[in-house]
C-alpha cells in the first residue's frame, strides 16, 4: 500500500508547541499553540499517501485526508482548505476536539509500528492558516432552489446541515435557544481548548454563505414545528443536543456547591463567568474541587476549576483508567496541570454544613467485576472501604439525557424508551413528515464529529426530499 515507507518513516511526528503546564493551569488561553508552516510541511511529508487510506474510512465525515495533506506539502493552502471544506464545514473545530486516536489517526498505517501522522494538528493548521491569511473567498454555491429549511439548534450537527444545504442553494435559517450560536461549542467546550473567536468565525462563515441565525428562539416554546411549516419551511432538522444533566441521585445532591457540568461550564464558557466581576454572571470558586465522571466534559470541568484558582482538583471515577472515556490528550493535559485521578472510587453521599453548603463527600472504593452491557468490566463496591474526602465544590459530569422540552411539545415525533428521537439510521428521517433529526438528541451524548456525521447524512436526505420529493 505504501509507496516509499522506508525513507519517510525516519521523520518523527512533529509535536505541537504548548503552553507550559505550570503557566496554563491558571489561565484560559489555548493550550496547544499551533504548527509553523515548516513544522506542518515536515509533518505532512510523513504521510505515505496510501491508495486505500484507512484514515479517511476512519473519519465519520470521510475527509479526503491524504488529499489535504498533499496540498499542505505542496504549500497550496487554498487548495488544502477547499479540500477540507468539501467534507467538513468546521475544520478548525474538528482539528482541536475530535478523538483522532480512535478515528483517522487510529487507522493510520504509520501507527502500526510508530506514531501516526498528526492529522488533527494538520487539519487545525490548514483551518487556522485560512483564518489568518486566507483570501476569504467563499466556496461556490448552487443557484437558489426556493426551498426553505429550518435548522433547530446551532451545535455541530446543525451547523453542518446548514452549511451543506446553503451550498446546495436552499434558504436556511438556524433557530438557537441561547443568545449566542454554536451550541456545545460555545457553552460546553472551554476557551483553553476551543477559543470562542474560532467558533464565532466558523458561524460567521456560514452567515456569509447566506445562512440566517435566529437566537433566543426556543423551538417548542417560542415557536412549534407545525408553526414553522405554516410559516413556509419545507423541511426541518432537529439538532437540539442531549441537554438534560444527569445527577448521581445520592443524598445531599441539592446542597449549595454541587453543580451539573452543564451549569458550571455554561457559566464559565457562554457567560464568561471566569471574568467575574467584569461580567455579571458569577461562578463558584472551589478550594477543594471534585469532579464526578471521566469523560471530556469531566476533564473540561476539572481544568476550568484549576484555572479558577482551586488548591486541589480531583476526578472521582468508579472505573479504572482504561475505561476513562475522555480523549487521551485531555487526560494527559489534565494530569500535567496537577489534576488528581481518584479511580475506582464512587461517591455515596454528600456532606454539608448548617448553611446547606457542601463540605465533603463520602465515597466507597470499587473493584472491577464481570463485563456489563457496555462490554466494560462492571465496577463493584468493596465492602468496608468507605472514605471521606473534603470538598467545597463538586461538579457532576456523569453524562446527559434527552431534554424533553421540544419532544414533549411535538406529539407526532416517536421517541425511544430513553426519550431520544427515533430516526431512520441512514437518513436521519423522523416519523414526522418533513422532519429530520441527528446528533445527541438521537444517539445520546457523543462527540462533535459524530453529530456532524449525522448532520451530513441528514442534509443529503433533506436535499433529495426538497429536490426530488422523497
Amino acid at each position, binding site marked *: 500500500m505504501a509507496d516509499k515507507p522506508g525513507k519517510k518513516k525516519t521523520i518523527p511526528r512533529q509535536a505541537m508547541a504548548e503552553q507550559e503546564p505550570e503557566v496554563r493551569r491558571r489561565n484560559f488561553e489555548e493550550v496547544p499553540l499551533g504548527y509553523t508552516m515548516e513544522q506542518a510541511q515536515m509533518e505532512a511529508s510523513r504521510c505515505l499517501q496510501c491508495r486505500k487510506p484507512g484514515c479517511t474510512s476512519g473519519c465519520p465525515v470521510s475527509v479526503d485526508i491524504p488529499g489535504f495533506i498533499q496540498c499542505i506539502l505542496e504549500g497550496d493552502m487554498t487548495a488544502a482548505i477547499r479540500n477540507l471544506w468539501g467534507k467538513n464545514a468546521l475544520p478548525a473545530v474538528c482539528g482541536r476536539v475530535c478523538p483522532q486516536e480512535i478515528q483517522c489517526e487510529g487507522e493510520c498505517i504509520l501507527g502500526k509500528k510508530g506514531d501516526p501522522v498528526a492529522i488533527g494538528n494538520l487539519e487545525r493548521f490548514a483551518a487556522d492558516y485560512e483564518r489568518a491569511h486566507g483570501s476569504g473567498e467563499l466556496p461556490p454555491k448552487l443557484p437558489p432552489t426556493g426551498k426553505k429549511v429550518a435548522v433547530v439548534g446551532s451545535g455541530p450537527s446543525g451547523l453542518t446541515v446548514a452549511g451543506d444545504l446553503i451550498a446546495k442553494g436552499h434558504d436556511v435559517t438556524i433557530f438557537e*435557544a441561547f443568545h449566542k450560536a454554536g451550541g456545545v461549542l460555545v457553552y460546553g467546550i472551554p476557551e483553553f481548548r476551543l477559543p470562542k473567536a474560532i467558533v464565532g468565525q466558523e458561524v460567521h462563515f456560514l452567515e456569509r454563505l447566506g445562512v440566517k441565525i435566529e437566537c433566543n428562539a426556543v423551538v417548542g416554546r417560542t415557536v412549534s414545528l407545525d408553526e414553522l411549516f405554516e410559516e413556509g419551511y419545507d423541511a426541518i432538522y432537529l439538532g437540539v443536543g442531549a441537554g438534560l444533566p444527569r445527577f448521581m441521585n445520592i443524598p445531599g445532591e441539592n446542597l449549595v456547591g454541587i453543580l451539573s457540568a452543564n451549569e458550571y461550564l455554561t457559566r464559565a464558557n457562554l457567560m464568561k463567568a471566569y471574568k467575574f466581576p467584569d461580567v455579571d454572571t458569577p461562578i463558584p470558586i472551589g478550594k477543594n474541587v471534585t469532579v464526578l465522571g471521566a469523560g471530556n466534559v469531566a476533564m473540561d470541568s476539572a481544568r476550568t476549576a484549576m484555572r479558577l484558582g482551586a488548591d486541589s482538583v480531583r476526578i472521582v471515577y468508579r472505573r479504572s483508567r482504561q475505561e476513562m472515556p475522555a480523549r487521551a490528550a485531555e487526560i494527559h493535559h489534565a494530569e500535567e496541570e496537577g489534576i488528581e485521578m481518584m479511580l475506582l472510587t464512587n461517591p455515596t453521599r454528600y456532606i454539608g454544613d448548617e448553611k446547606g*453548603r457542601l463540605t465533603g463527600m463520602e465515597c466507597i472504593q470499587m473493584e472491577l467485576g464481570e463485563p456489563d452491557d457496555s462490554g466494560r468490566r462492571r465496577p463493584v463496591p468493596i465492602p468496608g472501604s468507605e472514605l471521606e474526602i473534603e470538598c467545597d465544590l463538586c461538579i457532576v459530569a456523569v453524562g446527559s439525557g434527552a431534554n424533553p422540552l421540544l419532544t414533549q411539545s411535538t406529539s407526532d415525533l416517536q421517541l425511544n424508551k430513553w426519550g431520544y428521537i427515533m430516526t431512520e439510521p441512514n437518513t436521519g428521517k423522523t416519523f414526522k413528515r418533513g422532519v429530520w433529526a441527528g446528533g445527541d438528541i438521537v444517539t445520546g451524548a457523543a462527540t462533535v464529529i459524530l453529530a456532524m456525521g449525522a448532520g451530513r447524512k441528514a442534509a443529503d436526505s433533506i436535499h433529495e426530499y426538497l429536490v426530488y420529493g422523497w
Partner: protein
Amino acid sequence: MFKIVHREEMADATVILNEIEAPLIARKAKPGQFVILKANEEGERIPLTMAEANVEKGTLTVIYMVVGKSTALFKTLQVGDGYQDVIGPLGKPTHIEKVGNVVCVGGGTGVAVLYPITKAMKEAGNHVTAIIGARNKDLLILEDKMREASNELIVCTDDGSYGHHGFVTDPLREMCEKGSLNQAILIGPVPMMKFASKITEEYDVPTLVSLNPIMVDGTGMCGGCRVSVGGETKFACVDGPEFDGHKVDYDELMLRLQAYCEEEKQCYESYCTIRDAV
C-alpha cells in the same frame, strides 16, 4: 434588541415595570410563564415571570425589584432603550380551571406574577378573593389592577399604614376557617409562601406556589434551579415554575437562593461605586 415601550417606577422606585416589545413571545405567553432577560453583552440571564402579555401590541410586561447589580442595570434602561436578549415564554403555564372559590395571595413583587393568574381564574368562572401585602403602603403594587382582576380584594401592610394591619396570612387563615375554599395560589417571598402553605395545608386546601430559583438557561439544561418537591428533585424551569405548595422544601430553596450572595454583594457594590462616581 427588545425595546422598552413603557416604563413605570413603583414602590418608591424600588420596583420597576417594563413593557417590552417581543411579539413572538407575547403571541405565546400564558399566565404563570416566565422570560429570561439579558441587558447587554456582559449581562447575566435573569428569569422573571411575566405580569402581562399583549398580543395586539406585541408586548410583554415584567415587574422586578431592584436587588442587585443586574436589576440595578435594568433600572437604568429607559423607554426607547432595550434588552439585548429576551427568551421565552418558558415554564409551564398555570393550570386554569373552574374549581369554585379561589384565593390568590401575593406578597411584594409576587403580586405582579399573581395578577395575570388572578385575572384568568376569574375569567374561568371562579369566585376569586385576592389578598395582597407589602411592608407599608408605599411599597404596595398593582392594587387597582388586582381589585379589577378579582371579585374581592384584601390589602395588608406589615406596619398598618394601609388596609389590614398584619401579614397576608391573617386573612388567609380566616378564609380557610370559613371552609369554602377550593384552591389557593400563593406567590411572594419564600418565607411568605412557606407559612401561607402551612395554613392551607392545615385546612386541606389545594395550593399552588410559583418559584423563582437561580437558573441559567431556563430550558432544563443546567439544573441550577433544582428544587425538592415531595422528596423528588424537580427543575423549576421545565417542571415548574409552579408546584404543589404543600410539597416544596422551602428551607432548601432559601439556602439555594443564597448560593451567590457574596458574589452578588461584591458585584453590586462595585457597580454602585462606579455609578455614583460617574
